[in-house]
């Protein structure tokens, strides 16, 4: 039996029967016939419909809120403001996607003294119909005193900038600043003598980059239904990446014991990191309590999703790298200013570790700044922070390689990390597949084919992501007919029911069809961390592996008792069990094993050797010289999956991550006016890629087994979104000769850069010199 910290054996060399096949997912039928229930599909008898009043202003003091007229409207059953939430202590806890003060979490749910971004919630209503709830919102009077808005990291850190969070003093490398500012924290990792490293370089490239705020863009808006019973027992239906995270956030904010809260997961229509933070759930609970314990349903509009949830941080980035004549890096330096939004917690910490992660370099310094601005509180988004910094690093690496006349993949191979090399935070890598990915990309027909056509360019980039393990628990019951009921509580956001059930089937020696996976509520199994950090197929899959081992051991013991022989005398044979004289198939063994007593096993795990993920990508683009529009002509992604449990869903993750990266690179951005009002809060104007904007996305799965998992699995969900912006920027450079310094590389920006070059001035999107 393996322990949770290290596997007893790595089975990756063993041929596997189930892992690596492509069965239809167990929840497939319900998702193609419309019967699967997502967040907004929960319709309880007698449910009230809620709405949230949101600030039209990006920064204002709330002088007074008058809800009396709304409360008096016939059909309105409850109106709440920040006063209806328990006063929050300034206590730092792990909550949702970050460790932060409870005060900030509460204040993001309903603004108390100030509104800090357009869309910040200030009140909520529950009524007998949605139309009445909407009418009630219009009756709530809020008296605002407008304050100056601060929209970018640069403006927020300028001397004399308006203070957004009163009293916020930065934590700078462990020390608290004496003076308040809009800087929440500053973190540095370093090794070696930086300036000496740059002096050894033949070429030094020093560039600045800007990336705009983008949203996760899941198609299902946030939605919830909650009931708070008079005795304080709470039931919540949530579309979330983690029901236990919802439970602990609500318990902390509303000061309810964990065991009094039951969170029931619905199907989830995408999350990408954005469905970890709670926005609606605590409000629905408080509304239900105030409305006499009737169920309350809250559903966001698309505009609310864009103004008030997510997004990920915009950033200002400086990348400086040097290489010697042989193409070896001598020094690397990054300064990252990430816009956290209205509360601390941008992904700049993760970005520091992503920054130069693919590169072995003895001399390195990475500085990260978490900056408060009047934008929505940023949330995790697929490989949080990675795409921003990799856009800069991969552009600079491309310039270095070109300056030294080295092929861009060759340059990356020469400097690529392998087992034992250090990450930017000075932790060593275990066995990783970075070089294998680069070599696989070099070998693709795509990379070897000549680039043809006018205005076309080809770019490559790579990326690394640490992945995660986290806590999982699961139970499994053996049924007397040999089928197995598997109970987990990890949100299935893209096929993980299948990949987890497959690992149980593999471990137990049965077929995939014999395992019925079910995702339970918070009362059904113990804690499961969120589906995020590329952890679920890895860690909950590990739990499933252990369940299989435990069931097999228990079956063997019971067969031994029935056959009156020792357990050691029983061996496994083509799924069944055998001793010297007798053999039974799995179903018969199950019948015997369950004859006198039910057979159920449970497992809890927290595997630590999760194994970093790597991806290398190649893109061909065509740039329209008249409009600046960039078309993706061909795209290839190579990614190390460790072992692909269900290759179709691994490819799906790769293709989906690339598609999001392409959107980030080419079109997506939050556009604000000078008052901090979002100008493109709809899917018409917040332009995500459609089927027309993409070609087929060619995938190559590399399998460098992760020594930290029984089947060699690595997480595959995130690293794929890191390289696209850099790869596309490099392709645009080859097509036009222009280095783009800002995302998105949208038609206006590219056209402006093209025209500026023609006119001999600097375009708004072109790179600035460091």
């Amino acid at each position, binding site marked *: 039996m393996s322990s949770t910290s290290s596997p007893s054996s790595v089975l990756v060399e063993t041929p596997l029967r189930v892992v690596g096949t492509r069965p239809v997912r167990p929840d497939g039928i319900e998702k193609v016939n*419309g*019967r699967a229930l997502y967040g*907004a*599909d929960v319709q309880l008898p007698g449910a009230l419909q809620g709405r949230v009043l949101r600030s039209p202003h990006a920064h204002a003091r709330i002088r007074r809120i008058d809800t009396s007229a709304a409360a008096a409207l016939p059909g309105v059953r409850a109106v709440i403001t920040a006063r209806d939430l328990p006063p929050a202590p300034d206590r730092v806890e792990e909550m949702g996607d970050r460790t932060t003060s409870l005060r900030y979490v509460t204040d993001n749910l309903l603004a108390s003294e100030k509104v800090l971004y357009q869309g910040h919630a200030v009140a909520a209503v529950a009524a007998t119909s949605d139309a009445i709830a909407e009418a009630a919102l219009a009756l709530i009077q809020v008296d605002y005193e407008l304050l100056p808005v601060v929209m970018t990291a640069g403006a927020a850190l300028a001397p004399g900038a308006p203070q957004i969070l009163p009293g916020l003093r930065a934590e700078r490398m462990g020390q608290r600043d004496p003076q308040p500012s809009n800087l929440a924290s500053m973190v540095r990792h370093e090794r070696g003598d930086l300036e000496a490293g740059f002096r050894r370089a033949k070429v030094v490239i020093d560039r600045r980059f800007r990336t705009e705020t983008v949203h996760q863009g*899941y198609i299902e808006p946030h939605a919830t239904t909650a009931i708070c019973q008079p005795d304080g027992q709470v039931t919540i239906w949530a579309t979330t990446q983690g029901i236990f995270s919802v439970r602990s956030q609500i318990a902390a904010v509303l000061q309810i014991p964990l065991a009094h809260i039951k969170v029931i997961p619905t199907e989830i229509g995408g999350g990408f990191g954005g469905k970890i933070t709670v926005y609606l759930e605590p409000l629905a609970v408080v509304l239900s309590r105030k409305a006499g314990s009737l169920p309350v349903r809250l559903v966001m509009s698309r505009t609310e999703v864009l103004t008030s949830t997510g997004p990920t941080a915009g950033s200002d980035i400086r990348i400086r790298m040097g290489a010697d004549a042989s193409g070896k890096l001598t020094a690397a330096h990054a300064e990252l200013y990430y816009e956290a939004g209205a509360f601390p917690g941008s992904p700049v910490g993760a970005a520091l570790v992503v920054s130069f992660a693919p590169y072995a370099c003895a001399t390195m310094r990475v500085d990260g700044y978490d900056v408060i601005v009047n934008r929505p509180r940023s949330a995790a988004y697929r490989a949080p922070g990675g795409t921003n910094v990799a856009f800069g690093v991969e552009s600079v690496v491309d310039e270095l390689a070109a300056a030294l006349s080295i092929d861009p993949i060759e340059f990356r191979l020469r400097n690529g990390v392998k087992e034992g090399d250090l990450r930017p935070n000075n932790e060593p890598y275990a066995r990783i597949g970075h070089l294998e990915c680069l070599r696989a990309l070099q070998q693709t027909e795509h990379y070897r084919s000549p680039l043809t056509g006018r205005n076309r360019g080809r770019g490559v980039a790579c990326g690394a992501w640490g992945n995660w393990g986290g806590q999982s628990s699961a139970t499994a019951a053996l049924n007397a007919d040999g089928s197995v009921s598997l109970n987990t509580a990890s949100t299935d*956001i893209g096929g993980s029911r299948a990949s987890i059930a497959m690992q149980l089937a593999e471990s137990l020696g049965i077929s995939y069809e014999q395992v019925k996976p079910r995702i339970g509520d918070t009362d059904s199994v113990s804690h499961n961390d969120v589906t995020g950090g590329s952890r679920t197929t890895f860690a909950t899959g590990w739990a499933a592996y252990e369940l299989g081992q435990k069931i097999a051991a228990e079956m063997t013991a019971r067969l031994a008792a029935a056959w009156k022989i020792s357990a050691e005398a029983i061996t496994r044979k083509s799924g069944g069990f055998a001793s010297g004289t007798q053999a039974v198939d799995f179903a018969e063994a199950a019948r015997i094993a369950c004859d006198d007593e039910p057979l159920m096993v449970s497992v809890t795990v927290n595997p630590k050797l999760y194994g970093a993920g790597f991806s290398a990508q190649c893109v061909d683009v065509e740039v329209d010289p008249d409009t600046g529009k960039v078309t993706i002509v061909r795209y290839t992604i190579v990614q190390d999956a460790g072992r692909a449990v269900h290759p179709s869903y691994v490819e*799906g993750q790769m293709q989906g991550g690339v598609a999001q990266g392409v959107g980030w690179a080419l079109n997506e951005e939050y556009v604000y006016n000078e008052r901090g009002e979002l100008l493109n809060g709809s*899917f018409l104007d917040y332009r995500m890629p459609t*089927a027309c904007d993409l070609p087929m996305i060619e995938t190559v799965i590399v399998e460098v087994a992760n020594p930290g998992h029984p089947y060699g699995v690595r997480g595959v969900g995130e690293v794929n979104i890191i390289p696209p912006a850099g790869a596309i920027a490099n392709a645009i450079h080859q097509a036009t000769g222009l280095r783009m310094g800002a995302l998105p590389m949208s038609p206006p920006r590219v056209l402006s850069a093209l025209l500026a070059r023609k006119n001999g001035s600097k375009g708004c999107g072109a790179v600035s010199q460091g």
Partner: protein
Amino acid sequence: MKSVVEFTLNGEGRAVLCEPRQTLLEILREEIRLTGTKEGCSNGNCGACNVLLDGVLVNSCLILAVEVQGRSIVTVEGLARPDGTLHPLQQAFLDHAALQCGVCTPGFLLSAKALLDEKPNPTETEVRYWLAGNLCRCTGYDKIVRAVLDVARSSAPSTPTR
């Protein structure tokens, strides 16, 4: 003022009391409680709410319920045969792993059906243009496009024109 609106839904007659402001999407989801038709944006930009109205693909969030008087609607719940046998597109989406979270899937299925009803043997480019009204944030569209092309090829033997 509510009025009774009568229409055919997935082959069966329906009569629903509607307010003039209510959309077809709202009626389907909240009154008839067929929640397979999804709301992703409510302003015609995501296609999650797509249904067929007299065989024509529409965004049900942009149609008022009172407009469907006397007309015929097909939703995702009406795609499979009455005995539960999946429509070839539904089966192809499963076989090709053309869904991850699945919330966009009903809309894509209706769009793809409307395409193949009109043009049984489309090219990849035609499929992509036709599906451009449906947003999927999970898949990158690759497997969706392959699933649709696969159904077209297995039901229409002649080769597509490029």
